[in-house]
């Protein structure tokens, strides 16, 4: 056994499966022998997701979590049978697809069955008139977008994880893409769904532009993080591939000016597909080569769509930036962003320096946003070991924004990586929650954020827990996430 050579991070409260060969046999009967494994080489491959701390553990030869079985179902009916079996036997089932989640949502912290959705990878139908694509939930984002582009469309949902995420993952974690100011977030994009409930029922939400047929139950499953159901198929909005793109960038002397300019743009109902504000530190990091941006705050815009509309959006965007003291930096910063937005190297670099890093994307209303930004920075930088705390704003609404903080630090010798990580997170979340913000804009809750759920939701959290209990009375679908926290001890630090 090799696994004994690896320290296991999540090792408490593991489910005890008394007769593993019997369970394996039953799973094989459902999905076939080739689609079940309890081999070391397979279960080790599913030990982590893209939680940044897990990269440090990987380098140190640790396993984040360890499932007992991996299954690769091919039909909703097979998923249904697996869930029924799991309910009978009391075994956790954890949906997995591409493993790009940043909060541990697809990790088998108590062991159990990882249900990998990769074989649900067919793009079923494009309807040009309705502007929809129907796709199986395990389909990789980039493979979907490339397919749509080849047919003359875009899905408009382009998260930084596009290459490494799936449609089902987007829906599960209520994702948001970089072009979302124009095309919307995943909850705006999903039009219909098929999913399997925790006890095995297969349900469908019909594809319709809008309906008034009672509460909008389908929205309950967007952001359920694989705890209330497993999405198997979805119909998504698509758009004709943009005829024109305008690339615009402005540098601002103060963070406040940049916020004001973008707020005014949205107030005029101008929705550039991409808007990104980088604070001065991130401007130096990403746009250090742009002379006009020295010691300034860079804002990049991409307006896209029909030519006439793009031209008008570009004019209003420019005018508004200039009115707010913006300095035109031309197309180069936007081209640079396009070239580098998927070139992720930091995850490979930071762990080799024993550096602990993460991103904290929070939701906030416009009013008081600048003060909140300064407070988060000031407070977090006081945490011992923090060496960097910077931010950009990646998502914009007429009423508010999505901040994206990035921290890095060297844990002090008296603290473990996890303790240091939790201390930073607690510090940020306290400032954000005290000021009325939300602790996650688009990465979700997973393991790493679940202990803040009572603070975030207040009394409504009890309602949410009741819904979970109703749908999943045996708590077999993705336990240890959202409703409960394996990190309670960490909260004390």
């Amino acid at each position, binding site marked *: *056994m*090799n696994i004994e*050579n*690896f320290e296991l991070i999540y090792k408490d409260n593991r489910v005890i499966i008394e007769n593993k060969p019997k369970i394996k046999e039953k799973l094989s009967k459902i999905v076939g022998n080739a689609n079940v494994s309890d*081999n*070391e*080489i*397979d279960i080790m*491959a*599913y030990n982590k997701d*893209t939680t940044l701390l897990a*990269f440090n553990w*990987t*380098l140190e*030869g640790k396993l984040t979590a360890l499932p007992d079985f*991996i299954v*690769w179902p091919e039909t909703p009916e097979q998923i249904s049978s697996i869930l029924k079996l799991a309910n009978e036997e009391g075994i956790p089932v954890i949906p*997995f697809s*591409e*493993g*790009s989640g940043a909060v541990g949502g697809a990790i088998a912290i108590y062991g159990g069955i990882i249900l*990998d959705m*990769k*074989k649900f*990878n067919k793009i079923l139908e494009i309807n040009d008139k309705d502007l929809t694509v129907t796709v199986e939930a*395990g389909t*990789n*984002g*980039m*493979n979907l977008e*490339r*397919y749509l582009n*080849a047919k003359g469309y875009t899905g408009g949902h382009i998260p930084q*994880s596009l*290459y*490494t995420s799936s449609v089902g993952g987007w829906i599960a974690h209520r994702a948001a893409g970089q072009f979302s100011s124009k095309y919307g977030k995943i909850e705006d994009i999903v039009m219909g769904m098929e999913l399997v409930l925790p006890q095995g029922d297969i349900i469908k939400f019909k594809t319709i532009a809008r309906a008034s047929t009672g509460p909008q139950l389908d929205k309950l499953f967007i952001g359920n993080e694989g705890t209330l159901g497993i999405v198997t198929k979805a119909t998504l909005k698509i758009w004709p591939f943009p005829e024109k793109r305008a690339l615009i960038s402005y540098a601002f002397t103060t963070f406040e000016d940049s916020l004001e300019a973008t707020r005014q743009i949205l107030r005029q109902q101008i929705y550039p597909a991409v808007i990104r504000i980088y604070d001065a530190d991130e401007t*130096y*990091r990403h746009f*250090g080569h742009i002379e006009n941006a020295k010691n300034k705050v860079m804002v990049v815009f991409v307006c896209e769509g029909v030519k006439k509309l793009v031209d008008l959006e570009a004019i209003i965007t420019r005018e508004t930036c200039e009115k707010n003291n913006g300095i035109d930096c031309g197309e180069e910063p936007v081209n640079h962003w396009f070239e580098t937005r*998927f*070139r*992720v*190297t930091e*995850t*490979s*670099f930071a*762990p*080799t*320096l*024993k*550096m602990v890093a993460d991103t904290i994307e929070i939701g906030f209303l416009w009013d008081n946003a600048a003060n909140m930004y300064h407070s988060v920075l000031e407070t977090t930088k006081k945490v*011992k*070991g923090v*060496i*960097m705390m910077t931010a950009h704003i990646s998502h914009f609404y007429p009423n508010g924004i999505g901040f994206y903080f990035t921290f890095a*630090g*060297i844990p*002090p*010798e008296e603290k473990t990586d996890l303790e240091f990580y939790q201390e930073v997170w607690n510090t940020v979340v306290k400032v954000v929650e005290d000021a009325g913000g939300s602790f996650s804009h688009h990465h979700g809750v997973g393991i790493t954020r679940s202990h803040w759920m009572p603070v975030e939701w207040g009394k409504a959290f009890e309602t949410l827990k009741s819904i979970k209990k109703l749908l999943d009375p045996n708590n077999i679908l993705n336990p240890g996430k959202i409703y409960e926290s394996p990190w309670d001890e960490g909260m004390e630090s």
Partner: protein
Amino acid sequence: MGEILKKYKWMGPIIDAMDRDVKRLFMKNFRMRDKNFFPEGEYKADIKNLVNCMLCPNMCRFDCGTLQAEQKETMSPAYKARIGYYLTIGKIDPSKEENKAFIDLMYKCSNEESCKIWCPFEFSVVSLLETVRDDLNDKGLMPDYCKEQIDKLKKTNTIEDHNIYETYKEKGIENIETDGNDEVYYYIGCESMKFPEVVKANIELLKKAGVRFSTNLETKVCCGGPAFNIRDLETAKDFANRNKDLIEKTGANVVVSDCPGCVVTLTSRYQKAGIEIGTKVIHIVEYIKQLIDEGKLKFEKNVSDEFSKITIHDPCLIARNLNDTTSIRAILNKIPGLEISEPMYNKDSVHCCGWSGTAHWADRSLAIKEAKNRVNELKETGSNVFLSACPLCELGLAYGLSEGDKENIKIIDIAELLIKAL
């Protein structure tokens, strides 16, 4: 070190602003960076890039042929690198019988290198896996299916269980031995010998163009490509030296091969092994294009209806390794009335046929799944004639055909089409 400092220049002010204690720890970690995570002793594995790859969020996963074929996380590029790292540092003991599956994973790659297009570090995963194979070989842990290939090379001088070049007579292939004064050495790949019609067509084309060439099938040996894949460099170099002698004996100005794998091996792989072939080596599509440009080859006839609508499957070695996606198209555009369709993944974005690299030895069913994926992509064009320019592609694609497909779909080499239009 200099490279890192340049890339992370933005960290300068951050380091300056650190508290003394934190800075001390940071600098210690920076100095110990290699020591902390690099194994002791001698090894050939490219640890630095294995670590870069294993800690990447798998940015190339959507274009990895084996992962897309198997649809299992186990086949993901970053996981392969991770296992390579653990095998090298001994966290997974490669010498234990129970760990054979982990060793096998180091060979489950079809060398298509589409990962390189998306890699933030600009390497291909196979280039890392090969360095892990080096260490495995040094420890005497070469898998049996690789040993079998090496044995075949040594016994038959080809990658087949018999010397496939000796079959030329029974296959009706004309052999032209060199007089030492050739214009061209038509270098026939071992796998090409499985497709005698292709070899015959190439000979016909060269003759039609009036090229003075030889084939030297009596003395011909494999280029050594399989040994390079397996990383038995001793055997590979032996073949390289034998080929160097054979090529020099022809006096040819240019070596023209029908196998892209041979071209890559005779050029960049020999070069990396320190063996220089003085003669220019190119794939035959590049040479045919040249002959057309010089007016030595003309295609005036329409091909029959059966072959009048084709879809191109670019061999990944020609498209991504030899960086030539124009020759095939330039040639086909000279055939009157030919309807050419392009699959969605074409040119340098082409997906592999499954039959390159070591995957088809390590896990034949995996390679067949990859081939099936590619066949399905080609079928989407609606054309029933798949055209390629590589014997491995033609072999792989054939494995990807279902029983129903076999009745409707033809897989042909470009040369077979060209002679129909002469």
